[in-house]
């Protein structure tokens, strides 16, 4: 599904990613763990195509396509979803309108028929119910006045609606209480299956108790220094990054 080879990237002339090799096969959930400043967020932004990150080497293929040559919206249409660490507020933009516009943009790019307001509402209600979220969620403006937990839940709702092939969760657990964490984890787990992969970027083991990964990779100093099964996360929690990576 996702294949990263020798990826190097800079921000404002400063090398951040120093040669990432990583492969996430279809249907697998991989976790990336690492201390602050190791390049976790940079990796998620490089993969989703944010401006300001200069790719200096390497390649990324997504579903057989050259990901780095695509515009951010093309990546989204191809099935890449980024759950933001800090979801952005859009004042005056209704969440339902935003979600429908996004869904229809992606459906259009895929050659599928667009949904009208009623069809969308029906779909959205079903997803809200499955995620145990209130319908208020789609009546409010996008992330405006949302608590930290509500913002993250909104990300999960968007993911459920857009049905990506690969979801990157960028520290989605930060700032969440245990109930919100469970809702987020349930949302991701509900999507697991042969057509869905995820890259779960996190600082802590906590989220991985609820989303159990197939593989864990340790990112330090812009490189993946160690990979292993889910139990690697427990080792990291117990012994710290420095010791495990040494």
């Amino acid at each position, binding site marked *: 599904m996702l294949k990263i080879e020798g990826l190097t990237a800079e921000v404002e002339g400063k090398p951040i990613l120093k040669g990432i090799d990583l492969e996430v096969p279809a249907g697998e959930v991989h976790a990336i763990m690492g201390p602050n400043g190791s390049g976790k967020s940079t990796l998620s932004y490089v993969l*989703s*195509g*944010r*401006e*300001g990150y200069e790719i200096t080497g390497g390649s990324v293929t997504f579903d057989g396509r050259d990901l780095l040559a695509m*515009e*951010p*919206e093309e*990546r*989204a*249409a191809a099935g890449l*979803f*980024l759950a*933001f660490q800090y*979801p*952005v*507020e*859009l*004042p*005056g*933009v209704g969440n339902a*309108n*935003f979600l429908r*516009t*996004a*869904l229809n*943009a*992606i459906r259009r*790019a895929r050659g599928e028929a667009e949904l009208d307001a009623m069809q969308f509402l029906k779909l959205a209600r079903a997803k809200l119910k499955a995620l145990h979220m209130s319908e208020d969620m789609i009546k409010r*403006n996008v992330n405006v006045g949302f608590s930290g937990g509500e913002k993250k839940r909104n990300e999960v709702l*968007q993911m459920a609606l*857009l049905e990506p092939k690969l979801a990157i969760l960028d520290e989605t657990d930060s700032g969440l209480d245990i109930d919100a964490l469970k809702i987020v984890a349930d949302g991701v787990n509900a999507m697991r299956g042969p057509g869905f992969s995820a890259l779960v970027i996190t600082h802590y083991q906590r989220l991985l108790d609820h989303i159990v990964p197939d593989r864990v990779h340790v990112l330090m100093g812009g490189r993946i220094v160690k990979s292993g099964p889910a139990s690697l996360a427990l080792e990291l929690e117990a012994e710290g990054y420095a010791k495990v990576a040494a």
Partner: protein
Amino acid sequence: MPAVAETIETVQSVQEGGYKWGFETDIEMEFAPKGLNEDIVRFISKKKNEPEWLLEWRLKAFALWRKMEEPRWAAVSFPPIDYQDAHYYAAPKQKAAPKSLDEVDPELLRTYEKLGIPLREQERLQGIAVDAVFDSVSVATTFKDRLEKEGIIFCSISEAVQSHPELVREYLGSVVPQADNFFAALNSAVFTDGSFVYIPKGVRCPMELSTYFRINAKSTGQFERTLIIADAGSYVSYLEGCTAPMRDENQLHAAVVELIALDDATIKYSTVQNWYPGDAEGRGGIYNFVTKRGACRGARSKISWTQVETGSAITWKYPSCILQGDDSVGEFYSVAITNNRQQADTGTKMFHIGRNTRSTIVSKGISAGRGQNTYRGLVKISPKATGARNFTQCDSLLIGDQCGAHTVPYIENRCLSAKVEHEATTSRIAEDQLFYCRQRGLSEEEAVGLIVNGFCREVLKELPMEFAVEAQKLLAISLEGSVG
């Protein structure tokens, strides 16, 4: 429309920066000779077969205008206008005034169809009566008979001068006097057509009334005059739309709109102004120098202005309310966009004279490219206006780093019991907002459209439904190419 023609039009509209209304209608026209003098004023008056009093009224305005100077206090800049280098009357040639649509030149009907304003009976817009003004004359007014049954008069002002001279004489210039300002004086001297509306006592107008203004001819100005009178206890919602062909020259549009609301009457006046804005380098475009003012003469009367200003090279416009009646209400909701090299200096004036008068001002300015956008507003509260209240909110949105937004509020409060509130914000479309939308699959332009529409939501929701949809699309088109 055949597919090929549509494709060609689409491609052209993309090349020309998205202005889709820039075509020219090839039709035989009759012009007044270029220039402006008493003879031209007489020529126009004669063409319109006007009574003596109106000619005198025009001549007085012309004499006043000659002594006045172009106002230069607005935050806009333009080279001196040669008022002698334009035609002050331009009308499609036709033998006599058309009695029905069958007598209207088909080319004109096609023009309005192309603009999305079908005038023929079977294709008319549902629930909207339209007066179509082409350069200096009104070419057609739809649904007149239906409205007459309710006692509503909706016709061109030229026609009203003939058929209802007493109403025109009583109210013309009663809100915007001839000497009000330079452009109002000019308009009073040479106005050619516009709409006239009278809603009788206690009547709620059953449909939206609308005037569609089209400038077509070269080297002309459009000087329309609109007069709306809502008698006691009546209600009317009126819409105004406008477009013009793309030309290298600047054309002057100096309109005057007067509204009068008597006791318990409500007038809702909405504008979607889409005059040709000029090209990306600032060549051509309309100078939109307009005086719009409403008088809430009666107790509990209400006048509400909503405007979406996307076009024109320069906009100079302050739709205002004179709140004379006790408990009368004035509202001003505005979205003004300036892209490329457009300039807008727009806002409102709220004069609180009656007791417990209330006014609300919501202004949303959007600047992109090298556009300059100024909100200029006056809230004036007289000593007798006890209990008066005003709330003003001015928000500016900047797209890119070469545009400008300015807010110039004037508040003159002479009444201790009055309350005046003013809020203002300036923000940018942030890179993270754009990226967030694009990550969800929206193109950059869709994202800008969504964010801008969100920013303008409080104003757009004031528009009648049909117009709101149109306005949303227009906002997106006006900002095409403003990012990236």
